[in-house]
């Protein structure tokens, strides 16, 4: 009935207008009937009207009264409760601050996390009709993806019944000499259709026109908004200026709008013009993005592409090779990232639950002390609905303030975290607090506040006002109420359990991270600095010119101040080896897939990779000399186990090696001259791969990395290194300057970020659970002062009292731990993919989590326990006896 009553009131608020009209009609009818009646008794019409009005009483006053009753009292009650809520907050600022702080933390963390989830996973891509955007691959075997060849790409491009636009993209970097310092910038070579795929128009100027990606076209370039701002100061006349890339002048035809393309690595886009030598079906080098014709579903596209594949059977010899079409969005977010985000979201929800539990507990504790007040109000005639309403309104005030503070917390968290996590997120995810915290996010925050209100408000309200109020009027003076205490204990057990789940997860992740960090990279990490460069074809047109540069730069670097060793390599350790090739043996049908790295003669020494047998590279292994190869132990193991080659030294194998610049790979016969110890080519978590090293002088590359070992702090040597390179080539910029430590850090970022996030949440959760435990025990001690006093009067020692309180804390902890462990077991599946060489049921980590939680719990129990021990029996018994 209470509900109906409240609902009626609420409806009345919205129906006011109509009700006023209805009342008006009713009064009119009443007056008419009264008039008729009066006329019937013999009065004149005027007198009858007067009589009718006077016996009705004040019409306006009555309406006012009626309206009051209908709505104002409802609003008045609400206002009074709000004022009362505010007042009781002001009376107890400690309670208010703790509650609002807890809620702000919980709501803020959730809102921030939701913003990330929304930006990365929920929001449609920031391009028109993103569902039409696709990526196209060759699938050497079903489920595998590979880049495609120029000819195959051109075959795809002719399918204009499937695609509106299709573009290849190829990352490049180029030296920019426009402006003061030469810098190296990342860019992309793309087909003229590229921006049609994304549906992006230039902010100023235009994007590429048809034909600008054909041989002989004028060199043009499109800039990103951020490059326009930083390099050209946002000059509106930029279209009249030239942009010198690798010494070649390019006409700037357009600047992209600000947004997604500023978060891409690329800063400029140039048309991808195929050299005649690239026109083949051997080099799998192109990544392809496309936009489906409107009305073409991805399934239809797949079907037509496999039709196309079948028709190309004659020119593509690999029987199993198929064509794959995937939604563009699908590949933006990797599995690990998705899993990490869900995990963090789950963790932050648990934190919110614990915060709610804490607040509910605080409200309950407060409610217990207010039972007398409630009982008095009930005795004076306040209905239960009214009491619940009052308590809910007080909680509403808390939740509302907590929500406001939470949005502020979310804003701060996002501003702090966005730069740290941005690198791990796809370029389409916009985390800038201004644009990502929109109505959706605020709506989510409001939902969370409402959920929190229900969680924290309803239970304590029911608990407080449905208790036997009349009896509590008598009992309240004496204190304890068993049912409320039981509810609060249950809540604390829940808090401990939820914290244990989080701490277990964090412990497992930290153990996994520690294992990952202990992995031997196989190379010397300390005092090594690396940087990348890319020799422009204009200045280094021939392999000889490149080789001359390599030797000169290493020579010069080694005499630079603070430098001990210097070397060049195609790829750095831990960053993944880009090149893969098959090693074939004469007379053997099978081949061995290896990673290929081009390195100079000083590479192994600089990174201190020992040569296990044979020799490393020497200066004599130059172009024209017999081609040689060094393999790692893993490759040697494969050769001996699979190909029965016990000693690979001096054996001759066949391999395809790329030419200089755009020249495609060609078969070469090389002699294996040495075996070196494994270095980690992929990430620390990746298994060892077989690697083949070939001399950079024999297989020269333009995009190489410099590796420099220094005597002291590596970054301090950078100016000397830059100067040394400048002496060789004043126009050659150095990019991606990183110490090997940083390279290592980056390679484990995927594991590190979720670990620290979950760790932080687990810490917060444990503290909150401790706070909850403290609250319950402190309350219990206050309520049991009399009992404790009597026990002490009867001879209990302080130590007994302390152990009594600690025992009750422990009983809560143990139950919480058991429930939490069960929860952790149930959730192990979630963690599996993120753990490295640690079982999701690792006993050490789980035990550590339990010990930690117990310690925190006992610490929280210690304060009330020692307070209990200080109870003076005389005072207590005299006070309340």
């Amino acid at each position, binding site marked *: *009935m209470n509900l*109906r*009553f409240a609902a*009626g*009131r609420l409806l*009345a608020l919205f129906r006011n207008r109509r009700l006023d009209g*209805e*009342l008006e*009609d*009713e*009064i*009119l*009818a*009443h007056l*008419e*009937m*009264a008039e*008729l*009646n009066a006329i019937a008794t013999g009065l004149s019409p005027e007198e009858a009207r007067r009589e009718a009005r006077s*016996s*009705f*009483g*004040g*019409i306006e*006053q*009555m309406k006012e*009264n*009626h309206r009051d*009753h*209908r709505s104002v009292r409802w609003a008045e009650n609400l206002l009074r409760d709000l004022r009362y809520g505010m007042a009781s907050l002001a009376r107890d600022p400690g309670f208010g601050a703790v509650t609002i702080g807890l809620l702000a933390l919980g709501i803020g963390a959730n809102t921030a996390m939701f913003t990330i989830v929304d930006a990365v996973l929920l929001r449609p891509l920031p391009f028109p009709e993103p569902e039409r955007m696709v990526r196209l691959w060759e699938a050497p075997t079903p489920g595998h993806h590979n880049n495609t060849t120029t000819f195959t790409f051109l075959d795809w491009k002719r399918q204009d019944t499937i695609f509106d636009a299709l573009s290849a993209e190829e990352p490049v970097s180029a030296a920019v000499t426009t402006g003061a310092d030469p810098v190296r910038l990342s860019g992309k070579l793309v087909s003229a259709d590229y921006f049609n795929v994304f549906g992006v128009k230039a902010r100023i100027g235009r994007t590429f026109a048809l034909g600008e990606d054909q041989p002989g076209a004028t060199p043009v370039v499109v800039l990103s908004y951020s490059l326009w701002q930083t390099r050209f100061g946002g000059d509106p006349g930029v279209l009249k200026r030239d942009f010198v890339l690798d010494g070649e002048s390019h006409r700037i035809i357009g600047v992209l709008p600000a947004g997604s393309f500023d978060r891409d690595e690329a800063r400029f886009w140039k048309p991808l013009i195929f050299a005649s030598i690239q026109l083949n079906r051997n080099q799998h080098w192109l990544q392809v993005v496309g936009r489906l014709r409107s009305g073409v579903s991805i399934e239809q596209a797949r079907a037509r592409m496999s039709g196309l594949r079948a028709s190309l059977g004659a020119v593509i010899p690999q029987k199993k090779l198929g064509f794959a079409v995937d939604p563009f969005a699908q590949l933006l977010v990797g599995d690990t990232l998705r899993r990490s985000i869900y995990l963090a979201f789950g963790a932050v929800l648990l934190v919110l639950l614990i915060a709610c539990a804490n607040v509910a507990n605080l409200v309950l504790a407060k409610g217990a002390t207010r039972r007398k007040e409630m009982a008095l109000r009930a005795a004076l005639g306040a209905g239960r609905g009214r009491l619940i309403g009052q308590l809910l309104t007080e909680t509403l005030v808390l939740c509302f303030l907590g929500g406001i503070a939470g949005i502020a917390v979310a804003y701060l968290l996002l501003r702090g975290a966005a730069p740290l996590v941005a690198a791990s997120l796809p370029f389409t995810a916009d985390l800038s607090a201004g644009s990502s915290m929109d109505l959706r996010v605020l709506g989510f925050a409001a939902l969370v506040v409402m959920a929190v209100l229900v969680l924290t408000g309803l239970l304590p309200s029911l608990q407080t006002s449905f208790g036997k109020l009349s009896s509590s009027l008598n009992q309240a003076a004496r204190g304890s109420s068993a049912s409320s205490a039981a509810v609060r204990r249950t809540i604390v057990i829940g808090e401990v359990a939820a914290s244990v789940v989080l701490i277990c997860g964090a412990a497992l992740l930290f153990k996994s991270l520690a294992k990952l960090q202990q992995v031997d990279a196989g190379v010397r990490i300390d005092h090594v600095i690396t940087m990348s460069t890319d020799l422009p074809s204009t200045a280094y047109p021939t392999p000889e010119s490149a080789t001359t540069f390599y030797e000169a730069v290493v020579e010069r670097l080694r005499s630079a101040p603070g430098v001990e060793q210097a070397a060049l390599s195609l790829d750095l350790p831990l960053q993944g080896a880009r090149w893969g090739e098959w090693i074939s043996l004469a007379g053997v049908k099978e081949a061995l897939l290896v990673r290929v790295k081009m390195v100079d003669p000083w590479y192994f020494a600089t990174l201190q990779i020992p040569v296990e047998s044979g020799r490393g590279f020497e200066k004599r292994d130059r172009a024209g000399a017999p081609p040689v190869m060094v393999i790692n132990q893993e490759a040697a193991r494969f050769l001996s186990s699979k190909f029965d080659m016990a000693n690979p030294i001096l054996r001759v194998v066949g391999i395809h090696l790329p030419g200089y610049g755009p020249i495609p790979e060609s078969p070469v016969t090389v002699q294996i001259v040495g075996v070196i110890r494994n270095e980690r080519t992929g990430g620390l978590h990746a298994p060892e791969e077989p690697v083949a090293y070939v001399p950079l002088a024999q297989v020269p590359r333009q995009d190489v990395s410099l590796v420099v070992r220094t005597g002291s702090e590596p970054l301090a040597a950078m100016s000397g290194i830059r100067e040394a390179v400048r002496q060789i080539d004043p126009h050659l910029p150095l990019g991606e300057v990183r110490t090997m430590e940083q390279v290592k850090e980056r390679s484990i970022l995927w594991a590190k970020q979720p670990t620290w996030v979950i760790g932080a949440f687990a810490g917060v959760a444990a503290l909150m659970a401790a706070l909850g435990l403290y609250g319950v025990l402190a309350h219990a001690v206050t309520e049991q002062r009399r009992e404790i006093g009597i026990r002490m009067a009867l001879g209990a020692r302080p130590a007994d009292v302390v152990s009594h309180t600690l025992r009750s804390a422990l009983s809560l902890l143990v139950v919480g731990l058991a429930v939490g462990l069960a929860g952790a077991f149930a959730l192990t599946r979630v963690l599996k993919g993120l753990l490295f060489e640690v079982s999701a049921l690792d006993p050490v980590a789980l035990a550590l989590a339990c010990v930690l939680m117990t310690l925190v719990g006992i610490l929280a129990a210690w304060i009330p326990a020692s307070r209990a021990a200080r109870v003076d029996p005389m005072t207590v018994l005299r006070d309340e006896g």
Partner: protein
Amino acid sequence: MSENKTDVPYGTLDLLILKTLDTMGPMHGYRIARRIEQVAENLLRLNQGSIYPALIRLEEQGWIRTQWGVSETKRKVKFYSLTRAGAKQLNVEVANWERATALVARFLEAEP
């Protein structure tokens, strides 16, 4: 108006309305007011308008319900009738009233 009319005793208007509806069945506001006045035989000074807030209050409590009907003057008016909860409430109010009058009566009869 004569001086010996009395106001509706505080808090009893609800009781009067419920009882009226109980005996007379569904009726509209004016008839309720007239009926109360008739039963009181001019002993009562009733502001007829004051029954409307009381009717709304009773409806909100769920003790009476309303239906639209047509008055003698062919106007659309609300007809009020007692609900089951209202019938119960009437018993409660009657009992309360009897207890209260009995109590007061005992005081008045009490000898020094």
